[in-house]
């Protein structure tokens, strides 16, 4: 069911999701602000992985995919 708009809570949820599963690191410094934001890059990476339309922005389909029940890969695995 399409969502009409993305709320602030959804944005925060999405950021946490990307930090947890797509290794998003906090953006900092002016260099980041000049280019595409790390959040948008990670959103595009996630959309590519799940075969979603690659928009680099948080749309209803991307949010719905984030909210599906899933496996939570432990962080240690990434470090290894």
């Amino acid at each position, binding site marked *: 069911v399409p969502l009409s708009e993305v709320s602030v809570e959804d944005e925060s949820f999405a950021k946490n999701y990307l930090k947890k599963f797509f290794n998003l690191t906090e953006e900092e410094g002016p260099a980041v602000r000049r280019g595409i934001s790390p959040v948008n890059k990670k959103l595009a990476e996630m959309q590519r992985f799940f*075969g979603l*339309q690659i928009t680099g922005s948080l749309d209803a389909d991307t949010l719905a995919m984030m909210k599906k029940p*899933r*496996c939570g*890969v432990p962080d240690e695995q990434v470090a290894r």
Partner: protein
Amino acid sequence: FSIYGRKWQKRSLTYRIENYTPDMSVAEVDASIGKALQVWAKVTPLRFTRIYSGIADIMISFVRREHGDFNSFDGPGNTLAHAFAPGDGLGGDAHFDDDESFTFRSSRGVVLFIVAAHEFGHSLGLGHSNVPGALMYPTYSYRNPDTFVLPQDDVRGIQYLYGPNSRKDPSVDDPKPPTTPDACDSNMVLDAVTTHRGEIIFFKDSFLWRSFPQSQTPQQSLIRSLWPSAPVDIDAAYESRQLDTVFLFKGRKVWAFTGNQPVRGYPKTLTAFGLPKGVRKIDAALHDVNSGKTLFFVGNNYFSYDESRKTMEQGYPRLVNQAFAGLTRRVTAAFQHKGYTYIYSGPYVYEYDLGTGTRHRELRNSYFLRCT
């Protein structure tokens, strides 16, 4: 598939179930865990032995929230479980979020066998797959544990790490691993096509593609990701816009969904739509928006069902080629789009104007279901 770059150097691994979920009986948990490990043992040289004390390679526990590995669970929903890649200590261990409702085989809840088989994939060194339908795809969707067969992508992944099972009894004929249907396969014959709230949905085996009007890229997923109680390998589908409902047909049964919710009172039988008792299955269904009639294709014939009166029209069945000029082959799927009627027969799609009965074009599957 993806791998973590770590694998077990030995072929004989131990596992230990440290505690149990109250959602299921001890016997059900034992059976689910044992069967989940066998999913991987069947296709590799790996063998699993259960131990009841001490440290096993794969330690299995049901835990809530913060549980000592700095990877807290999050209460009901979202994260269901996690497992660590092969290694010492936490390596290989699998943790299940006990705030979930685990079940033995019901679709009302999370099937422990499916989650465990996925987690043990991690325990053995597999990462996530981006193939919808693969066991190692990161999101959960219901599958029947009794008929589960490890998909081809997962077989390729685990055999890349450990090789095939050389001790397999050649007299045992295992079912072929299921593959994910490919929109670029020009010979693919779709099971059904329907509209759904402005989208077009294409069905094949246990999969569907959703094609959104604003997107060129169809999105593939499991049918049960969208409708957990829906059948797979369906025969036909159509949307009633008046009822805001999609009907799925398989054999003599009909399922109905509004949005992603099942409609109460379904599944029903074909006779509820006025079809004769002798009809065991339909080949395709087509809802005509202009007349409000739904056509059911059965072999060379079709029936016409009046949606508003909820009765089958008199004078049917009729021959398909009476209404659809030149159509002599079996109809496999049908739907309407922008005022035209599209009849699928094998990998071909025929465009008709239902008002005049004329055929305009012969197209291929890829006209609507794009190969991207």
